[in-house]
Structure formats: structure tokens, C-alpha cells
């Protein structure tokens, strides 16, 4: 098992592994989100108190759950990157942050849109809302920190430290509604009590679980794709990337310009190139 793990940590193996896995995750994720959201919006019954306003839950709860899960995953990758100096884990940290920030922002915006008709206010400074906003700032901090260094490895390690310090906020967000008085209600599905004794009618819960599972798979696909890009950029001088890019050029060149493209072209394909540059643009060669 460990040999498999170590092999996966090598960039070319990871790249090929992700290349095969990501499309399936994406298809399965989008299908689950599609069915879950469709059922949530059109099939599930309206709530006895909130009416149709509750339906934003099918976006809000998956986004909020992911905002916490992604940060946790980022911190775990950060610990691996710092302790074992694993390059792939460094890539994992920096490529997770923008996805996490997006889901956090989505959770905040959908929550505000729900809060106005339900509570009567878009925003209050209670513990749940405030700690979720802090989570967004932590993500933005990781993104900014990554941009602040010119050396990607130094940047990734700084990001890993910030991810580890910030992970203390994850249980605070999750338990804020239990520990303190807040305007935000308690967990409907993600608490031990709620799992033992469901707080949501099954006809409403099923679509929610579907869109949630779909969102996790979707995140997996996007994360893998971002990590693939990160690996390619960092390893751009490595033989396997050159060989890989050469193959891509060869495949494309055989269609468009026979005889023009080949593995030798990769080294020459810089922005300073004239004619070939047109064909190479956007390929990151």
C-alpha cells in the first residue's frame, strides 16, 4: 500500500492518475448536483414555515460543508508538505485555496439571500456568520501569500503554515451554533444528534445529500485539474513534461501542419518565436 502511495507522490504518476480520474469525478459530480438540485427545486415539498425560500439549502449547505472540508484538506496537505517536504502536497495546498474561497463566498452569499426573507436581515455579527467570514479571509490570505513569493516552494510552505494556523477556525465555525448563542440555527444534518434523529423530512433530505455528494466529487475533479496544472508549471523543465508536451504537439501538428511539430519544437517554443507561436499559443508549452 505504501509503495502505491509513494509512487502516486511522483509528479508524472500523479499526472496520469489524475488525468484518468478527474473526468469521471466531474461527470459523476455534475450528474449528482444536477439531479439533486433539480429534485430540490422542483420535486421536494415546500417547507411548512419558510415555503419555497428554504430551497436555497440545496446550494448553501453543500457550499458551507465544502468550505470547511476544503480548509481541513488544505491543512492536512500543508502538514504533509511541511513535514515530508512532498512537492505534490505543496501543489495541493496552493491549488485548493481558490476553490475553497469560491465555495466560502457562495455559502456566504446564499446565506445572506436566505437571511433577508427568513430572519429579516442580510447580515448580523453572530458567531457563525463572523467565523465563516474569517474563513473566507483565511483562504484569501493563503491565495495572497502564495502570490507574495517568487519561489513557488517557499510560497507553498508559507501557505502551509497559514493553513495550519487557520485550521483552528474550522471547529469554531462548525460548533459556533452549539457553543454560543447565535442567530444562525443549529445543524440540520451534520451533527451526531441530527444523524440519530433526522431533523428534515426524507423527501427534502435526499436531494440535499445528492447535491452534497455531487459537490464533493465536483471539488475532487477541480482540485485534481488545478493540481495537474500546478505540477506541469513547476515541472516544466523536467523531461517527462517535455516529452508530454512533445506528444501533444505531435498529435496536433499531424493534423494542422504536417512536418512542423515534433518533440524538438518544445524547447524552441518560447513567446519570442514567430510563426510557430501562433500554433502554440495557449498550450503553456
Amino acid at each position, binding site marked *: 500500500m505504501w509503495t502505491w502511495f509513494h509512487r502516486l507522490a511522483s509528479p508524472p504518476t500523479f499526472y496520469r492518475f489524475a488525468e484518468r480520474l478527474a473526468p469521471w469525478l466531474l461527470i459523476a459530480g455534475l450528474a449528482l448536483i444536477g439531479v439533486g438540485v433539480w429534485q430540490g427545486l422542483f420535486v421536494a415539498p415546500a417547507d411548512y414555515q419558510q415555503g419555497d425560500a428554504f430551497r436555497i439549502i440545496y446550494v448553501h449547505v453543500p457550499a458551507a460543508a465544502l468550505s470547511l472540508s476544503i480548509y481541513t484538506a488544505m491543512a492536512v496537505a500543508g502538514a504533509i508538505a511541511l513535514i*515530508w517536504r512532498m512537492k505534490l502536497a505543496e501543489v495541493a495546498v496552493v491549488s485548493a485555496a481558490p476553490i475553497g474561497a469560491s465555495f466560502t463566498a457562495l455559502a456566504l452569499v446564499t446565506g445572506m439571500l436566505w437571511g433577508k426573507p427568513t430572519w429579516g436581515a442580510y447580515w448580523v455579527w453572530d458567531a457563525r456568520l463572523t467565523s465563516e467570514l474569517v474563513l473566507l479571509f483565511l483562504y484569501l490570505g493563503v491565495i495572497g501569500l502564495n502570490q507574495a513569493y517568487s519561489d513557488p516552494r517557499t510560497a507553498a510552505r508559507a501557505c502551509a503554515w497559514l493553513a495550519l494556523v487557520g485550521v483552528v477556525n474550522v471547529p469554531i465555525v462548525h460548533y459556533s451554533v452549539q457553543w454560543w448563542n447565535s*442567530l444562525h440555527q443549529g445543524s440540520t444534518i451534520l451533527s451526531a444528534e*441530527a444523524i440519530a434523529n433526522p*431533523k428534515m423530512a426524507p423527501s427534502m433530505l435526499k436531494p440535499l445529500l445528492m447535491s452534497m455528494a455531487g459537490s464533493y466529487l465536483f471539488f475532487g475533479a477541480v482540485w485534481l485539474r488545478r493540481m495537474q496544472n500546478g505540477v506541469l508549471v513547476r515541472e516544466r523543465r523536467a523531461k517527462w513534461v517535455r516529452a508530454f508536451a512533445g506528444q501533444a504537439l505531435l498529435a496536433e501538428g499531424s493534423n494542422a501542419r504536417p512536418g512542423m511539430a515534433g518533440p524538438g519544437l518544445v524547447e524552441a517554443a518560447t513567446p519570442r518565436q514567430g510563426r510557430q507561436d501562433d500554433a502554440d499559443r495557449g498550450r503553456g508549452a
Partner: protein
Amino acid sequence: MTKRNQRLLGVAALLIGVGVAATLGFTAFRKNMMYFYTPSDLAAGTVPVGAAAQLGGLVEAGSLTRGEGLKVEFRVADCAKNVAVRYEGVLPDLFREGQGVVADGYMTAEKVFVATRILAKHDENYMPPQVADALKGDPESGKHSCMPFKAVAANAG
């Protein structure tokens, strides 16, 4: 000790350190993390008369009286105590007896909480109207739990 073990120790120490600091900090400032006071807190005199405060609790069943225009009076209760609330203004759609509310306002010397804004506090239960109707026989149904309203002051409740 290898370099790797040193880093492992560093990461573990950081996590434990930040965790302990957060625990101590949030325990010490528990009061500041509370979004609202409960009727028990107000009964215990935690909030001085006239000071701006938030009050959270359930609108007591049978206590709501509507006055002229937008004036309403009702009592807000937690699991132990209740307090009279006076308000003039627009109420949220979800406002009703048995519903959780959070009110901004202040206490008067007559032990009445004068509210300047009222927000509905929803609970974590979701069900279709038919299920809610089927539960009508149960006196506890439709009534939110008083459990989420935790007293802020140690001597209250």
C-alpha cells in the same frame, strides 16, 4: 532526532499551541461570543437599564397582543424565565407564537424590553406542511425548542 521528526514536532506544537490558545481565549470571552441575552439573563439583572442589548427567546404562546398600527406586545421566554417585549414596526414573515426571535433594544426600569428591531430565529427542523399538520395534535409541535437559548451570565437561569 531527524530533521523530519523535528518538523513533525514543530507542526504538532503549533497545532496544540493554537488550539490551547483558542480554547483559553474563547472560554474567557464566552460572554462576548454570545449574540444575545436570554430572559434569564435579563431577570438576573445582567444588562443595565437603558443599555443596548439583544434579547433572544421564544415568543410565548398566547402572549401576543396587537395594538394600534404596528404596535405589538408579547413575552419572550427561554427554558426558565420570560420577559415582556414592546415593539412598533415591521415584523419578519416567520414571526409567530412559539417562534424563536432575536430582538435589538433595551430594558426599561419597569422590566419591559423595548425592541427597535426584531429578527426571526429559525430552527433546524424542515418538513412539508402535511407533516406539520399531522403533528398538530402534539402540543410540542410547531413550537421551537428553548434549548438553543443559553444564558450568558453564570448566575442566571
